[in-house]
């Protein structure tokens, strides 16, 4: 079986796949919520190893991708101000705002710094008492507790020139929104392991019951994902819809109580806009009243920014599992990791980036003029970056013109 010798334990992987195959009697669509799982799936060809009845739909689980354009633009605005040191995780640097990104802001003289931990940003504030230090606080339930602790520490240490630009998001309301959509095809969820390391599994039984959907907490390794798929499929075939934990080695039922307590203290639940998706009720956190003075949006007036999304980017549909990345017209043509239109192409956990990096794909049909221009002017983009043994999926009929595909492949440089 192709790919399977790349697994940690090929024999076990083979057994899991056989069990899944034996259990499946009809088509099922499962969503993996976490972007890290998406990368693992595409990298290891798990979607192609599974029986054809099982479709894996990629979910919105990349925090960089779902941070709304408005917040990115606020970050760019604050980072451009004199006297400000703007600190961020490295993966936000290339995320496109309206017309520019943080990397370009630094090129234009902004003091943008990359930190490994929010505590590093706090240290920078301590060392620069005459400057305002702003940390870009994005992320899911895994990232929110570190940021919460940092604000708590700022207050405890009396550091006042520090603030957080907050855009934290929560997974369960996103699952609720996806299940509530009329277009929803998802029948089972692989829940994100590391989110549950913090939050535990308590938030899911209500969701599973309301939407009659199995939710299986799943890790990132290929074998973890196969096990998550196996358990979800078994439930679906039996007509069950329970919460199961297939990642107990990192996810106790109660999560991390200390982290949850800090979240409750520092943040409060709020409605939050998701880039490309829209506002989802109760899907985010903002600083609670007691910590409002550490809110960068209060400290800097950043209202009235004119945001403009590139019209061709369909990452909203990608993030909701309605469209696979390569089905986007811009994929690999006007949108590449080097010149991304959407965050899903630039983020290390983005679905568009996963497809671009790991899979040789049939390219989407584009206007011949646009194509000729691109290949003529800049033919250093390579599509042949997929791991050995990959080939276009046979079930992918969108680009039926073999000539076109062949000529495009011929023009790319390895």
């Amino acid at each position, binding site marked *: 079986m192709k790919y399977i010798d790349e697994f940690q334990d090929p024999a076990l992987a083979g057994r899991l796949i056989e069990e899944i195959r034996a259990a499946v009697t009809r088509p099922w669509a499962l969503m993996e919520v976490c972007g890290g799982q998406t990368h693992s799936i595409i990298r290891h060809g798990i979607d192609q190893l599974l029986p054809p009845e099982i479709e894996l739909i990629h979910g919105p689980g990349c925090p960089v991708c779902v941070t709304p354009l408005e917040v990115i633009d606020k970050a760019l605005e604050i980072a451009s101000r004199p006297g400000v040191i703007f600190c961020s995780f490295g993966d936000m640097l290339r995320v496109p705002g309206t017309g520019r990104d943080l990397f370009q802001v630094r090129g234009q003289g902004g003091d943008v710094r990359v930190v490994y*931990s929010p505590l590093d940003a706090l240290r920078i504030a301590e060392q620069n008492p005459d400057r305002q230090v702003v940390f870009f606080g994005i992320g899911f339930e895994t990232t929110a507790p570190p940021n919460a*602790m940092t604000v708590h520490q700022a207050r405890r240490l009396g550091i006042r020139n520090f603030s957080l630009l907050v855009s934290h998001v929560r997974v369960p309301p996103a699952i609720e929104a996806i299940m509530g959509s009329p277009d929803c095809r998802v029948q089972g969820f692989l829940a994100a392991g590391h989110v549950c390391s913090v939050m535990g599994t308590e938030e899911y039984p209500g969701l599973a019951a309301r939407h009659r959907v199995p939710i299986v907490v799943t890790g990132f*390794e290929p074998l973890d994902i196969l096990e998550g798929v196996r358990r979800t499929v078994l439930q679906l075939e039996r007509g069950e819809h329970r919460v199961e934990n297939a990642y107990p*080695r990192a996810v106790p039922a109660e999560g991390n109580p200390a982290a949850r307590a800090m979240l409750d203290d520092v943040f409060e639940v709020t409605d939050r806009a998701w880039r490309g998706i829209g506002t989802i009720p109760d899907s985010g956190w903002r600083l609670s009243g007691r910590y409002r003075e550490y809110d960068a949006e209060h400290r800097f007036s950043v209202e009235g920014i004119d945001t403009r999304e590139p019209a061709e980017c369909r990452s909203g549909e990608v993030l909701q599992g309605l469209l696979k990345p390569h089905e986007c017209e811009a994929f690999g043509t006007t949108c590449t990791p*080097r010149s991304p239109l959407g965050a899903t192409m630039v983020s290390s956990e983005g679905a568009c980036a996963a497809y671009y*990096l790991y899979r040789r794909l049939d390219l989407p049909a584009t206007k011949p003029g646009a194509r000729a221009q691109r290949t003529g002017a800049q033919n250093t983009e390579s599509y042949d*970056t997929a791991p050995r043994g990959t080939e276009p999926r046979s079930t992918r009929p969108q680009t039926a013109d073999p000539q076109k595909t062949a000529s495009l492949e011929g023009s790319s440089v390895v």
Partner: protein
Amino acid sequence: MCLAVPGRVLEVEDRDGTRMATVDFGGVVKEVCLEYLPDLKPGEYAVVHVGFALQRLDEESARRTLELFETLGMLQEEFGDPWEAAAGEDGFERQVPDGTAGEVQR
């Protein structure tokens, strides 16, 4: 960024009233806050995210997960030079697996 990386605790100390540790992530050593796992001890493994230990992990799982993240280029993402990566072309290409053994090109 959302992914947490397993690491092994080397040393634990109290600093300004905050529980901190030095943690080894397959060769890269970082300062990590233990406030959310205060009884973590040297030699133990934990899932660490943006400088915070969030959950204990057994050694075997930790080792396997580290290998996977290396393969996916995610260690490079977490600990590499982000400016270099953001600088485009060259920085990006070096994160692309070379397609032979899933190794990260360096």
